[in-house]
């Protein structure tokens, strides 16, 4: 059995799920996409825990499943206004978003590949440093999701996606740095508090509107 290709398959599915989220108009499908992405990351963590016989990764996978898969999805769904299946964001131009996202990815691949990989130590099992590409691509896609949309829920999903990128990076690096495990908790805490506050206040945040005098 070639575990290398399975790791690649899961990583590529995570990337595709990021594109899925980017292309959605309805908030609920975006939240569901985030759920799928988190579950995929948990699966990657379980697979590597099995390959490396590492308890750390097993615990991390469980944490991702509970905190990101269940808690954040539940929290975001309860914050949605009534008739939540119909809440959507206007002015989403999918071809434009996809093309810009692709340009980002192509540039990011070149930069990451040529600069960063010389200094990072990759995980031993996948045998190839290119798995480290996927967390960084996910991170950039999260950033782009935040900048390209105005709905608060979308921006929270983008934030979660960025965090997913960090967690994926932590999974692919061995040993798992304790700081990232801790930050998972802190992020979830901050996310729950902050998003509870800002979604109650208003549902869309325009560019720079809070900073204008």
């Amino acid at each position: 059995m070639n575990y290398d290709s399975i790791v690649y398959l899961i990583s590529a599915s995570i990337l595709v799920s990021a594109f899925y989220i980017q292309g959605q108009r309805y908030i609920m499908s975006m939240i569901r996409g985030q759920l799928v992405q988190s579950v995929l990351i948990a699966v990657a963590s379980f697979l590597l825990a099995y390959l490396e016989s590492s308890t750390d990764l097993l615990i991390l996978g469980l944490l991702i499943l509970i905190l990101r898969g269940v808690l954040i999805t539940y929290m975001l769904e309860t914050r949605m206004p009534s008739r939540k299946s119909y809440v959507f964001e206007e002015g989403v131009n999918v071809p434009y978003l996809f093309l810009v996202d692709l340009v980002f990815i192509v540039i990011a691949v070149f930069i990451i590949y040529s600069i960063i990989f010389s200094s990072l130590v990759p995980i031993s099992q996948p045998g190839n440093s290119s798995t480290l590409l996927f967390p960084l691509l996910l991170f950039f896609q999260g950033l782009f999701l935040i900048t390209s949309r105005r709905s608060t829920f979308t921006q929270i999903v983008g934030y979660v996606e960025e965090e997913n990128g960090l967690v994926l990076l932590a999974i692919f690096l061995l040993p798992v740095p304790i700081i990232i495990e801790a930050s998972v908790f802190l992020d979830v805490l901050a996310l729950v508090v902050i998003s509870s506050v800002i979604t109650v206040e208003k549902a869309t945040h325009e560019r720079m509107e809070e900073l204008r005098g």
Partner: protein
Amino acid sequence: MLTLILETAVQFIFVILSAPLFAGIFARFKARVESRRGPSIFQPYYDIFKLLKKETLVPDGSSILFRYVPYVAFGVYCLIALIIPVLIPVPIIFTASADFLGGAILFSFAAFLKMAAAMDSGSNLAAMGVSRLASFNFLGEGALITVFIAVSLITGTDNPYTTNQYLVSNPSANITLVHVFATLAFFMIFLYETGKIPLESSGLQELGMIDESLNYEYSGRLLAVNKWSSYIKQYLLGSVLLNVFLFPWGLFSTSPYFLLDIPVMIGKWLLLIFIVMIIETTLAKVRLFKILDYLAVAFTFSILFLLLSEVMH
């Protein structure tokens, strides 16, 4: 040498003559699924013969382009039929004239000629359809060419015959990530190029028509030639999908056995028709401006996995 000539002749004649048959089988099967009796599977032939006997009307003010482009486009599709593995899995006489990208560019060339001729008719409805086609094709053609580049990266060559041989001899190459997603992207392009239902419903309805608008002003013999060449185009794209992407096995190349390729190819086409029929009968047509979203997804898949194929080496 005799085998080579025979193979060339068999492939050429089979493609030209059988292309309308698959459209007929598809229409019949679809009708059966929808609990209709449906037309005979030879209906496309009857249509072509009927149109050949009818009077040809040419719009006032149209130029020589309008009258001769159907024949030129037909010739281009006939040329493509000789250079890609649509029936015989080994190179035949004219194969060396172009590679995969050459085939893609010939497809684009024929599409461009047809668009220019439709514009030449001066009809408003044809112009509307052409403008739609032009604005969709920038993503469609891009994805088509990128898919071919992705395939050539897998095998290291741009020759479709080599790709076919490689996939037959390395079964594991058929389930690599890059190949699966290139197949998916090419299948999406196939549905778009042949005007299947999530994108375009056949029939002359002005609201959603894209490809049909190219035939809008044609009649008689010219319409027959145009229809025939779109059947050939559908056969060519579908056979590339089957032989290079989806199901490369089962074709014979040695001397007396290459005639067996004909039933094999028909069997493969029945598989493809079945898949497309499921899609056509379960999905609803998307709105016109959503087609760009669809093509953007196909383009994204092709670029993404072009990139990944390089990264994973």
